[in-house]
């Protein structure tokens, strides 16, 4: 029996104002201070789409090799909850803005965890949708406090096909997506602050047989917890089936302290979202430079080929470039791009010293990263600056000091 994992990722779009209203997007602010009449769902308000959010979704779609739908539609997804005052969420279910992409990710696998394993997962669709507000549960006083600052913020929902098989793969995919989104500037990707929310759909089956019943795991705050939650859930389901039980189709929450998943609420039984086309919004059209109809105001036009040309260097391209330029191993370039700031450190050392990049990378990898990990520091907090390391290496080259002395 193997596990089957599919991810649903909600990425908060990095924009100044919300998706359908002009209120500010900010993480920490006095409660209900960034709320407009539309966000509070007062009658008589209408949604007006934010151009930056459309561009962000198109850029993300292009970076993930999706085909962009030149015409996409908005729908309403109805469910009642206190943090969504309208009673429905405006999303794109029938015809989203981008479909059929691929996310290629790598992780260090193998017995010694030093071999690059590269896999890819298909992305079913990318859609624009509204975020809901935040609810703080006050159990003792039997009430919930609602803060609508987050209500209406633009989200990109990325729906992936269930092609992964364990927590490590899922964590690597999420890490790669974080890097891509941060490079594009469309999302900060901070899972702890809720800018990137991942829900995992986990099931187990015997290869060749139909897929088993899936459960949804929520409340995951980091890539590491994601791996643990998925592995625990796969284990739990396998044990349950071996003992002759049946897996319930339910939503489970991951508990960080115990490392286990606990049931949250019955999902399929009650929820019928009654999708309906959003009547207040005409279709969203994006164009190519060649096909823009005449007489259209330039500020109303989102040009796909222009955005494609303006995409920055994606992480995968950067890794290949490093391997080419500095002749380092793919595993090393993977670590360089993965850790924040390590790449800049490495490049500045290489510039300042005459030593070969291979030797530099050896020093950086083993000594620097090793000692940083031991003392649990980030690269920016490193006591050894890049200049100091460069000088050290220069001395080493000149033969003034021995390597063991340099290590100290």
């Amino acid at each position: 029996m193997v596990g089957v994992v599919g991810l649903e990722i909600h990425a908060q779009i990095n924009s100044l104002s919300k998706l359908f209203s002009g209120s500010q997007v900010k993480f920490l602010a006095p409660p209900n201070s960034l709320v407009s009449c539309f966000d509070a769902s007062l009658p008589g308000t209408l949604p007006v789409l934010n151009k930056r959010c459309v561009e962000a979704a198109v850029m993300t779609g292009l970076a993930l090799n999706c085909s962009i739908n030149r015409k996409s539609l908005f729908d309403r997804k109805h469910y009642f909850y206190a943090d969504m005052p309208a009673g429905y969420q405006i999303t794109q279910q029938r015809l989203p803005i981008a479909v059929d992409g691929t996310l290629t990710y790598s992780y260090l696998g193998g017995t010694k965890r030093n071999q690059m394993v590269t896999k890819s997962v298909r992305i079913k669709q990318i859609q624009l949708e509204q975020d809901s507000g935040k609810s703080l549960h006050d159990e003792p006083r039997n009430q919930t406090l609602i803060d609508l600052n987050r209500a209406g913020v633009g989200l990109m929902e990325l729906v992936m096909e269930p092609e992964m098989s364990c927590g490590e793969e899922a964590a690597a995919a999420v890490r790669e997506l974080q890097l891509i989104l941060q490079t594009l500037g469309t999302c900060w990707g901070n899972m702890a602050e809720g800018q990137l929310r991942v829900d995992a759909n986990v099931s187990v089956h015997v290869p060749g047989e139909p897929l088993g019943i899936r459960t949804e795991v929520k409340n995951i705050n980091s890539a590491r917890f994601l791996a643990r939650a998925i592995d625990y859930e796969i284990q739990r389901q396998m044990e349950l089936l071996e003992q002759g039980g049946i897996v319930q189709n339910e939503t489970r929450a991951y508990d960080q302290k115990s490392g286990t998943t606990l049931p949250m609420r019955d999902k399929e039984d009650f929820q019928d979202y009654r999708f309906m086309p959003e009547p207040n919004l005409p279709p969203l059209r994006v164009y190519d430079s060649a096909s823009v109809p005449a007489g259209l105001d330039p500020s109303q036009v989102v040009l796909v080929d222009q955005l494609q040309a303006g995409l920055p260097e994606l992480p995968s391209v950067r890794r290949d470039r490093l391997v080419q330029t500095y002749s380092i191993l793919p595993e090393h370039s993977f670590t360089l791009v993965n850790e924040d700031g390590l790449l800049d450190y490495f490049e500045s050392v290489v510039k300042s010293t005459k030593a070969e990049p291979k030797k530099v990378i050896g020093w950086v990898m083993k000594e620097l990263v090793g000692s940083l990990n031991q003392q649990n520091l980030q690269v920016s907090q490193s006591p050894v600056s890049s200049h100091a390391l460069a000088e050290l290496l220069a001395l080493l080259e000149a033969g003034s000091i021995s390597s063991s002395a340099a290590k100290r």
Partner: protein
Amino acid sequence: MFLETIKPGLRRIPFHLRFINYQRNALVTSGSGKLVQCSNLTLFSPYFSHVKYVHNKKVPWAPKWQPVMKTQPSSAMEVRGEVVDKLERLALVDFGNQEGIDCLEKAIHFADQLHIVNSVAVEPLDSVLHDKSMHLRNDIITEGKRAEELLQLSRRVIDEYFVAPPGNIPLERK
């Protein structure tokens, strides 16, 4: 043929009473025998007594529409208890008593008329704006900072947060 039906005496009837008889919808004359091809109001208006009315052949003399379903549909779906419960939970509508449920059944039968239409190769129209494009707004901050106004709308407020009952909206089980 309507020339004879509209007697000169009719002209003395006030305007609002002349609309009651639908049979006169398509064909109206002015007293002098000159016809006007448009609605009742303009026809009886003294300003159009010189315009000649030409009847459009595509417009029938009398309304011809009939109810689509002359009989009750064969698939009489009875609305059972669990379905009613689920509907109440999803739509937050209280069906109250048997009358409410009867009304619901009638509504469902009324909607069954949609199945009679043949829509095989027709794309559904869900908005009259389907050939227009959405207006895109620039990404600038224009609203916000009205916490006080919005909080006044809520019955209970604690420390600038709206207060709601815990979990989802509770419904009493019947």
